[in-house]
């Protein structure tokens, strides 16, 4: 029990990570997939940030006091970059969803699969009996 209490941040991250990953895999709705992907990525951000934290540590600002304890700023900076990447990924993902909705009229995986199949069949027909 104390083991879990000491590492509570890791358990939180793992739960969040699996929730997000499950949504990415199991959800048929593309928007929900994107939400899952965001949760999945955010759990990794939290993993990095919680690792940089030191109990009683302050912001890493030079004070001249050699005894001052401060959090490790590097994971925070890395995650700033990763957040930017995540925002860009989300933007591209939703842009694609909008375009998919415009051309197929659905953003459900199973309905889309049927439409893609009919596209393929149309291709087949066009190939075997050319106009």
């Amino acid at each position, binding site marked *: 029990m104390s083991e879990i209490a000491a590492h509570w941040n890791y358990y939180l991250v793992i739960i969040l990570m699996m929730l997000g990953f499950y949504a990415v895999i199991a959800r048929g709705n593309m928007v929900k997939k994107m939400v899952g992907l965001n949760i999945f990525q955010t759990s990794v951000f939290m993993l990095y940030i919680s690792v940089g934290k030191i109990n009683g540590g302050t912001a890493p600002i030079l004070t001249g006091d050699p005894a001052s304890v401060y959090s490790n700023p590097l994971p925070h900076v890395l995650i700033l970059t990763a957040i930017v990447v995540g925002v860009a990924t989300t933007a591209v993902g939703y842009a694609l969803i909008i375009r998919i909705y415009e*051309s197929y009229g659905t953003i459900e995986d199973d309905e889309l699969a049927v439409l893609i199949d009919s596209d393929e069949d149309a*291709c087949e027909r066009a*190939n075997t009996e050319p106009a």
Partner: protein
Amino acid sequence: MMMQHLPILQVILPLLAAPFAALASRRHWAWHLTLVATAGAFAISLLLLATILRTGTPIIYDLGGWPAPIGIVYVIDSASAFVLPVVSGIGFIATLAARHLVIAEIDARDHPLFFAAWLLTLAGMLGQVTTGDAFNIFVFLEISSLSGYALVAMGAGRDRRALPAAFNYLILGTVGATFYVIGLGLLYMLTGTLNLADLSVRLADVENLRPAYVALAFIALGLFLKMALFPLHLWLAPAYSHAPSAVTALMAATATKVSVYVLIRILFGVFGFEFPYMTQAVGGLLLTLGLLGAFVGTFAAIVETDLKRLFAQSSIAQLGYMAIGLGIMTSAGIAASFIHLFNHALMKGALFLALGVIAAQTTHLSLHTIKGAGRQIPMTMTAILLGGLALIGVPLTAGFISKLYLIRALIDSGLWAIAAVTFVSSALALVYVWKIVEHAWFTERPENAPVLTETPGQWAQAWILVLATIGFGIYAGPLVEAAFGAAQVFGPDIIQATQTIEGLQIIEGLEGQE
């Protein structure tokens, strides 16, 4: 003065050109700018390769003057100098072809944005190869992937299936990249560093801790996804078959190869052969998945009628061979993978550029489309035929050199059964190449089929790569030497040293017979 900044310049050049391309008010300017930037990057990477081959000492470039491990460094060594010209060279030749392909396939309004994304994806790939910082790899990986998703989606103007293909690619690509970051986070917790060279030194002290194994698993899995290793390959075929032809040529030839390179860098450059579980678990996994991928890809290509998808499936098989080379866990195996990485980039670049000539004229590119096309567009179809022969591994093509060194590396490690199976699966590629030959040359063109045309300006770029494939197939000495030099970066051992000598003797023997 300029010389010392070359490692950064070849990444910066396409990166800086991208926003200007996006702002270009006339569509031709965007293409001209792209051509200049890619030509510059190609010239710089050749210069770097020449320098490394001459001096043999790695070039370390400290960004902003901050030395490692505090700052981010760019490292040009035998391995990265070997891969850079592959990426930038294919980028340059694909840009040459992009002119007519993009005019045919992309709405004129979108050309500036297309070339901006094109330059970004290239900059991202060059960055991944050059950088010596593990987190920097992730950033460049995402730069190249994000612009890659956009490029694939631009196929939607002709084929709306490009959109769901790009979306699936985005989901799986992001999951792969995130797995890589998780693994990296664990490594950072253990070692407190992100510099690849520093990581490998510090990891030796903690290599028996469980987080190190988990980190290896996450990083390997993430990169397997990115390199489309079976069974994580499902994003590849739809993305390649519905993307614009120029994009397919660029990505099929370079994107997965760069991921293979990053995998080599991390597996052997950071974890090393001595790492627990490396030989049995990772090596065994790479061999098994590589072999399965080789068969699944080849059989999928055999039953496929859509030509772009046919060669995309064959890419799965070829990536399987690269995985087998890594799975052998010797320098000879890594060298075989490097050789195949180079050759496969040439072959697939040539094949998809040649397919682009036909794709630009028809809506559906299938076996039916090319019925009897051998007489209408002989240069294009011959390029496809020669590229196909190289995929099988016919002697006098570069594909033969790849298979020769792969099978030799397998036999030298006592993996006879795998060598035999590899041989069988590459021979099976003959079936799908024969299907194309049969349709293109031994079938009458249907009377109502549209007339296909070709001009030298359209097939020339594919032929440059076809001739390179044949050239390196006949005169493979320098390529083999450079590949073994690249593999040597990841730990020279005795087997490897003797193999280089024997290998070169084989090549000289072959040249003697010419």
